[in-house]
């Protein structure tokens, strides 16, 4: 039992946990640390358990079997420490930030919240009402309205990324009981493929000791359940089944002064796909930064928008994602902005990238990644990203090689294969009545 002996691999010290991995990294920052991590879960999306998981994580920090919510809050708040637990489809993630001296206290609090939450009936009602209010608030945000509507155009309802209409979500949330929460926690919370990263002014050996005390004895839950094997449950999603017919939805948002547009289609690429890095590179060139093609053309050259960008949904090994292009347009620029954006995407898909552009963007991507590691949070998130996806402890060091290995032929083939301008669904949210 306990943590196996560490193998020091350069800057990151990697430890084996009985049911997971711990990555600890000492950084020359004054007396601070960031802890991030996650474990696997198996919500039944077709039964709305994505929302149930949201409710469970909201309640997880509302007291444990040992301390009520106020005692737990006092321990953290009086030290200025922050601790949060969040739902992320088939994983639950957690993060904490605090002064280095408070590491033992934070790990103890985290372990209590994850392993033995209290789930009081009173707290249940408060958190249920709070989540419903937040859903209503979320539903009034144009960008969220566009993204949610796009998800409904791109995915079948049982897909983890499908966002149901807000009324349906509220109705579902209202039906859950505290017993549902307890059952879900019992069945899903455990050291399932557990990954923990701690970066900052810490001693890796001390981190390992604290994790050993509080987390190492945590067992996996019944995970993954035999009815939901990890890799095939959502493999049926096939973006080509969507066809190439253009679909445009218009949603009125009275009182707003601009339009928010989301364009997108599914991409059948997961993070272990051979073309994953090529598609990542393609998105980087198309719209993932301030000197991307979309920004250079639609904003800088034509002056049609303030905000434009593209993104690939965070990749997982278990299910597909989609490509999304977002932009903001003033009413007098709506048509011209849409035409220019679609034209830029079509040009990119048709002609691909030159070797000079690829070389320049590879250098930029590597530089931006390195600069992103300048914060403890960016550093720990990047390590966790690699750890969750099986890229290993050296992901942050190997990123440059991964990007450098993308060659022109692979990149342009991937763009031609996976970016389908004619297959983009469009959601436009804004003041249609006034227009």
């Amino acid at each position, binding site marked *: 039992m306990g943590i196996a002996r560490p193998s020091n691999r350069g800057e990151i010290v990697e430890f084996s946990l009985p049911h997971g991995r711990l990555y600890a990294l000492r950084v020359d920052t*004054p007396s601070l640390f960031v802890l991030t991590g996650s474990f696997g879960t198996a919500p039944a999306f077709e039964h709305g358990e994505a929302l149930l998981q949201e409710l469970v994580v909201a309640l997880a920090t509302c007291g444990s079997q040992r301390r009520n919510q106020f005692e737990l809050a006092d321990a953290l708040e009086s*030290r200025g420490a*922050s601790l949060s637990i969040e739902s992320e489809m088939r994983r639950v993630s957690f993060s904490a930030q605090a002064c280095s001296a408070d590491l033992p206290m934070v790990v103890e609090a985290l372990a209590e919240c994850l392993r033995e939450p209290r789930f009081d009936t009173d707290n249940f009602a408060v958190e249920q009402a709070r989540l419903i209010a937040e859903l209503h608030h979320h539903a009034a945000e144009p960008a969220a309205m566009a993204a949610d509507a796009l998800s409904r155009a791109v995915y079948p309802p049982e897909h983890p990324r499908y966002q149901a209409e807000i009324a349906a979500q509220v109705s579902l949330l209202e039906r859950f009981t505290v017993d549902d929460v307890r059952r879900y926690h019992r069945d899903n919370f455990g050291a399932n493929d557990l990954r923990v990263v701690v970066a900052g002014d810490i001693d890796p050996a001390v981190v390992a000791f604290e994790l050993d005390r509080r987390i190492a004895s945590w067992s996996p839950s019944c995970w993954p359940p035999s009815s939901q094997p990890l890799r095939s449950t959502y493999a049926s999603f096939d973006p080509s089944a969507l066809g190439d017919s253009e679909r445009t939805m218009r949603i009125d948002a009275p009182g707003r002064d601009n339009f928010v547009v989301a364009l997108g289609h599914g991409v059948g690429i997961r993070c272990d796909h051979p073309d994953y890095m090529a598609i990542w590179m393609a998105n980087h060139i198309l719209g993932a930064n301030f000197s991307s093609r979309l920004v250079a053309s639609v*904003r800088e050259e034509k002056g049609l928008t303030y905000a434009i960008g593209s993104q690939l949904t965070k990749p997982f090994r278990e299910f597909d994602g989609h490509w999304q292009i977002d932009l903001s347009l003033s009413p007098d*620029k709506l048509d011209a902005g849409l035409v220019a954006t679609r034209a830029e995407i079509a040009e990119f898909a048709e002609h691909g990238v030159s070797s000079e552009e690829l070389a320049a963007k590879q250098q930029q991507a590597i530089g931006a*990644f390195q600069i992103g590691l300048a*914060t403890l949070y960016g550093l720990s998130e990047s390590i966790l990203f690699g750890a969750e996806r099986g890229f290993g402890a050296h992901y942050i060091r190997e990123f440059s090689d991964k990007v450098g290995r993308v060659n022109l032929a692979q990149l342009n083939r991937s763009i031609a294969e996976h970016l389908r301008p004619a297959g983009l669904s469009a959601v436009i949210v804004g003041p249609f009545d006034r227009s």
Partner: protein
Amino acid sequence: MNAAIDLDLDPNRDAAHSGIRYVRSIGGIEEYRLSENGMRVLFMPTHAAPIALLMLTYDVGSRHESAGSKGASHMIEHMMFKGSARFNKEQKASIFDLLHPVGAQANATTWLDRTNYFNLVPLTHLETAAEIEADRMRNLRIAPGDLDAERAVVLNEHDMYAGDPLEKLNQIVWHVAFPDHPYGHPVLGSRDDIIGLTRERLFAHYHRYYWPNNATLTVIGDVERERMFALVRKHFAQLPAAEHALGADDEPEAEHEQQGERRATVEQADQSGWVMLAYKMPNGLSADADALELLGSILTAGKLSRLYRPLIASGLAASVWASAARLKRQGLFQVQAMLGSGQDHRRAEQTIREAIDAIRRDGVAQDELQRAKGRLRGSLLTSRDGPVAIALQINDAIAAGDWTLYATSIDRIAAVEAADVQRVAHRYLIDKRLTVGHLIQEAEGDGALSSERAAAVL
């Protein structure tokens, strides 16, 4: 934290040698002045990563704008990325050509009291960032075609914010609180303001404020002091100082004293309810602002705060928080709450008022003050994660009038006593300093912003 640091080199000797006058060191930050033109230089060596941040903060923001130039500070911020004499797209030497290709983060922000430009770069490109900033400090280009394109970009930025109900609520509350002061005007300006900004007006604004003696250069990162001195001298020392007066002559008139409570309402369809209570607070350098920050924490931060049980646990609100705008002139101390579904604005407002009344009447307990201090200290420390976060906090302190506000914040928070919290509640959290804002679901009919209604209750 407040003590001068021990330097491995004598900064006085090195600085004098290079024509840069050493001023002081506080909290790991060294302050210098360029002898030639009076530009302030702040230097914070850190060694966590092989990168550096270079930031220029200008003492100009929307507070310095008069009729005809509203929105000029922000528009100039945008035009500064379109090119300067030596660094521009025609010569393939713009920021997009030189800094973005190496992954640098180069961005800027404009606010009420200041405009700042920051570049987070690999160490190899620190000098390029310094050259660009030095050139665009005095040699901005505004090509007519660039201005037209960028004006459309800024108009879209304006439209994004102008239609946002929370932004509307915030703007109308500031406008009603400061009807005769530039703080009451949106930083971006109105649509008409932006459309009316000519090249000549922009240049007039630029040439009034973009001078080394109206700027602070901040360098943070894995940089040797000698290298920083060399960079500063090479690229900034030759820039001339402004010959016209900066500072006092540019200060707008003080706001007339408020005589009573003011109210404003924003109506919008499909919108959650919000309540905002905004009290005029002292300028950002005042010690009373520290006490107000602690008071805000005691009121709203976390499950042990005064408002958690009556607002959140009761379901009246889904969230509540407080903020203190630490500005050059008096700002606003704001408490705002997002209401629970179908909850009543008046009841939420009354709950917040009662919690403030209780502090005015009975003060705060030692244990809750200590908890608030611990929370603020911890959140201050953890929020300083990386050069950009540190630079932006220093930037706010510069804008408030003294960069050492950043370096001394933890000590100042520690020095606040329970009596101070009660005293500032008595002094500032009173009806004659209060503006109340409600964001409500639009009634049948026109809806939209009820600025007229707000004006009517002044």
